């Protein structure tokens, strides 16, 4: 089953009963999977909306009415959803948004890329909000994290993003779907009609500044809580490592391939793979930096997660960077070459500031 | 004989738009002089019981400031 379809199937199993989306490569198979299969479920609604903007607002409505809801797109389409995502965050509506990133900016291309990290983790929309961002790196994780995304969205009443790329979406790997947890969420906010009781409303507009501030801090406290509780990462071959690659998603897979090669060459290299990009596993990375002093951040971009790594490490370790933006997926061989050249000399000096982004590759700065 | 009616105007809801004056065929509503809390001068019902209870004023009042009673 293709990655895109794995997400679709996992969503349906997790109880997603509303999907709205607009075609865009490289995530069309997910939309198509939902067109085919969601409508067959009991009460499942699939809408190919007139635009990405309509789609995000449709899922806001469906979510307010109590359905587990999802939309998906790829980079340019995700940019168009920013107002809607900000609005869902403000209204505290759960919902799952899949971004199968492609090369950008602009129309860019449809190849696997990781250029939307900032947008995803820093709120590409306006205002003080954050979106939980999960970055799968295997077919199995596509399934598991999709299910988790729905649970987290419900738990915290907030939009959750699955951030992957065309390679994850196209790739086929054996997957086992776990039994979904029963849905748990505070039904109090769901609109079902006032019945005989008090009517309620869901809104993001709060004209009074003091009230609005209160709401902002309420959200901020929620985000703090999420930061403390929901970080996820994988640490791989780091025990004896002299150097650790920091990479997520597709890049992390390439890194694993590279590490196998590097180890066979006798170089002790490990991997730190953030799974939750927001909240970034700052604490975990910091702990690792207690005995590892050389990191190399590898992204399929010109360097975005790099900021989070630097914020986490605060100069306690050396940070190198290697980036291949624009849809290029370097091979493990290439990455291992780069890493081996940067492999630390004994007693290498720790430079607290990243004075230049160290980039290798044909077009490095 | 026209039916007897009565209107009750909520002074604090009225915004002095005078649409009710326009609507009342009996001329039973007239502009007021006193300001309310919001700074508007609410309309008043004329004395003399000209009101038929036709509710046209209520139908027009944007603020639902008028209640209409009839025998």
């Amino acid at each position, binding site marked *: 089953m293709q990655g895109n379809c794995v997400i679709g199937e996992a969503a349906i199993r997790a109880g997603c009963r509303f999907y709205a989306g607009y075609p865009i490569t490289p995530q069309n198979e997910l939309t198509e999977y939902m067109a085919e299969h969601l409508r067959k479920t009991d009460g499942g609604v699939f809408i190919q909306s007139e635009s990405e903007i309509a789609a995000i607002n449709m899922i806001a409505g469906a979510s307010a009415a109590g359905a587990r809801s999802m939309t998906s797109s790829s980079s340019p389409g995700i940019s168009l959803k920013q107002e809607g995502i900000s609005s869902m965050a403000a209204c505290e509506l759960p919902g799952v948004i899949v971004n199968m990133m492609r090369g950008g900016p602009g129309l860019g291309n449809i190849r696997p890329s990781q250029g939307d990290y900032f947008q995803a983790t820093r709120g590409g929309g306006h205002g003080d909000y954050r979106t939980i961002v999960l970055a799968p790196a295997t077919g199995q994780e596509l399934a598991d994290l999709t299910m988790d995304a729905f649970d987290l969205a419900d738990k915290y009443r907030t939009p959750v993003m699955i951030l992957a790329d065309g390679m994850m979406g196209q*790739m086929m790997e*054996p997957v086992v779907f776990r039994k979904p947890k029963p849905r748990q969420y505070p039904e109090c906010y769901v609109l079902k009609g006032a019945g005989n009781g008090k009517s309620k409303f869901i809104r993001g507009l709060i004209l009074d500044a003091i009230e609005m501030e209160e709401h902002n801090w309420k959200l901020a406290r929620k985000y703090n809580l999420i930061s403390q509780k929901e970080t996820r990462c994988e640490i791989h071959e780091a025990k004896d490592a002299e150097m650790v690659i920091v990479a997520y998603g597709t890049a992390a897979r390439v890194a694993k391939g590279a590490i196998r090669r590097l180890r066979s060459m006798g170089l002790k290299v490990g991997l730190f793979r953030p799974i939750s990009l927001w909240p970034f596993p700052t604490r975990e990375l910091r702990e690792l930096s207690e005995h590892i002093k050389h990191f190399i951040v590898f992204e399929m971009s010109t360097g975005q997660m790099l900021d989070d790594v630097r914020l986490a490490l605060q100069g306690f370790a050396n940070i190198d960077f290697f980036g291949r933006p624009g849809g290029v997926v370097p*091979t493990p061989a290439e990455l291992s070459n780069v890493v081996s050249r940067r492999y630390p000399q004994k007693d290498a000096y720790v430079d607290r500031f990243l004075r230049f982004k160290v980039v290798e590759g044909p077009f490095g700065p | 004989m026209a039916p007897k009616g009565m209107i009750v105007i909520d002074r604090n809801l009225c915004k002095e738009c005078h649409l009710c004056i326009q609507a009342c065929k009996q001329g039973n509503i007239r502009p007021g002089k006193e300001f309310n809390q919001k700074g508007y001068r609410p309309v008043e019902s004329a004395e003399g019981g000209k009101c038929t209870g036709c509710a046209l004023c209520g139908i027009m009042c944007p603020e639902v400031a008028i209640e209409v009673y009839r025998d």
Partner: protein
Amino acid sequence: MNVKTIFSGFGGQGVLMMGYSLAHGAMMHGFHVTYLPAYGAEMRGGTANCTISLGDEEIASPIASEPDYLVVMNAPSLYTFQNRLAKGGILFLNASIIEARPTRKDITFYAVPCAEMAEEVGNPRAANVVMMGAFLQKTGIIRPEIYLKSLETIMGSKKKTMPESNRKAFDAGFRFLESVNGGTGR
């Protein structure tokens, strides 16, 4: 064991199906597998290719920097991919369309006139299946029975194609290379 194969050709030659059926068969055999079709959905009529990685452990990277095996179904693919093939790797080429031959000396290659052979067995659309027969004969990644079963499952789920004619096409390819030794680049 960790083996990577690239299948490549132009759209319509069933290149993705070749890769997919191999991946499926390998999964049935119990391997860890990744199947990565190349990205070209926004463009049609161009070249198509896919990468299959299979092994005993989780596949670290689904990309093949240096594939062990390479199947090329048209000439542009030969030019594009031949240099990527690992030293000592095996290349299978569709001799029905491709006149050129590889230039590298450190690889083995087999030229399979699969279009003609497919026509011979009466299923002109099965050139790709002929090639799969040839491919499994020389690589032996999975047993023919497993592969053919997978093929049947896949095809069955799509449309009722004659399983018989596919089997024949496969056998033709398989037997064709039985007694052939591979060439090397000139």
